[in-house]
């Protein structure tokens, strides 16, 4: 019996998110985006959120809808500006949302560090650029590095492909992206999958996220 809980619907899966939470949201564009969980978070109502995602929402749906509803105080991302990021653009220009811009690799590594119990790390990315402002620096092997701190989540919303009934996960192709590091970096990780297979139905050699990092699982979408 695993500690992973299997919920009946996305609303139950995101229950209990409190105001002021840091929410890690997986996905790179549409690939790996936990659409149903984001919609459930919108219904759930938590406010004053800090959202960590690679981007800052597209169109009027998903993360963009969460932003439009005024529920996000701050966004931590690498690439907010896109052809269809008008919701974020307007909020940012109006000074109604805080942006912490982080190079994509540093974002991933700060999340990884959180899940791995690393207190901070020195990273060469961004040294000598405006994104180094205010950061401690250290020259290591003749190269300037920046001191970077982990990003811990209160909650992670992740999309995987399959879970087994123990809570182990596999992903599909490039939809894996931030899923594994976010699942490990959050106090509570919530995962939507397209299907759940019996325990033993996933080859242990190919499990990507072990169940220890998976708190809640919900099956969404059409069953095969």
């Amino acid at each position, binding site marked *: 019996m695993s500690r992973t809980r299997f919920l009946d619907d996305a609303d139950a899966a995101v229950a209990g998110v409190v105001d002021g939470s840091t929410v890690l949201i997986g996905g790179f564009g549409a690939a790996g985006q936990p659409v149903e969980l984001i919609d459930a978070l919108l219904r759930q109502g938590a406010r004053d959120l800090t959202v960590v995602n690679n981007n800052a929402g597209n169109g009027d749906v998903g993360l963009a809808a969460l932003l439009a509803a005024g529920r996000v105080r701050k966004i931590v991302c*690498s690439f907010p500006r896109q052809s269809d990021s008008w919701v974020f653009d307007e909020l940012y220009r109006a000074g109604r949302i805080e942006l912490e811009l982080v190079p994509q*690799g540093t974002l991933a590594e700060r999340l990884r560090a959180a899940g791995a119990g690393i207190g901070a790390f020195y990273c060469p990315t961004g040294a000598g650029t405006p994104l180094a402002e205010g950061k401690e620096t250290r020259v290591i092997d003749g190269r300037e590095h920046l001191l970077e701190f982990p990003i811990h989540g209160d909650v992670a919303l992740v999309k995987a492909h399959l879970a087994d009934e123990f809570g182990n996960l596999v992903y599909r192709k490039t939809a894996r992206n931030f899923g594994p590091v976010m699942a490990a970096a959050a106090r509570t990780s919530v995962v939507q999958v397209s299907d759940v297979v019996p325990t033993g139905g996933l080859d242990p050699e190919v499990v990507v996220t072990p169940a220890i990092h998976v708190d809640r699982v919900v099956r969404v979408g059409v069953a095969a």
Partner: protein
Amino acid sequence: MNLERTVEHTDRGPLSKDELAARVARDIPDGAYVNLGIGRPTLVADHLTPESGVVLHTENGMLGMGRAAVGDEIDPDLVNAGKIPVVETPGASYFHHADSFAMMRGGHLDVCVLGAYQVAVNGDLANWHTGAPDAIPAVGGAMDLATGAKAVFVVMPLLGRDSSPKLVPTCTYPLTGVRCVSRIYSEDAVVSLAGGEAVVEETWGTTVAELRERLPGLVLRER
């Protein structure tokens, strides 16, 4: 190696986009692991043959990226860094974002090809932010690539639309990375940067002397 290669090709005009992409591809060693940036650098892929053994990396988590997907091949779970659906090639692998950027930062990629607003003669790169007050900054993986790839190739015109030089003594735009660019590929010329020097490797439709006039404040050596 053709040591007799002419530097100045004044018998023709500047390279077309495709010719330029082919010229970049020619400088990518067989078997190299390569990341191609979004936009014009992507065209380079069309000129890499399977026999070259070049493996394309896409920072969202894949080695062995293939061409753009068409028709039934389109899979929303399989996209490149530009979020365009692509196909996988034999030998492809998937990995998460932290591993993907560890590959870059760890110096495992041989070449990355990027666009730029400006490059300084010392190799400083500016390609993520114009610094305009109303601009929304977005960096993505540009800084990680600039920092980590063994060779950084930049595809850009030497002059902007307003004729202002883009290869400059010192960048005025916010930097992406310091002293990281190894070569610049433009329609007019290929310029190598090393040790604070700019060396013109080849020109098309122009001469080194003309480039010196158009790019003031720089010492341009001839190969």
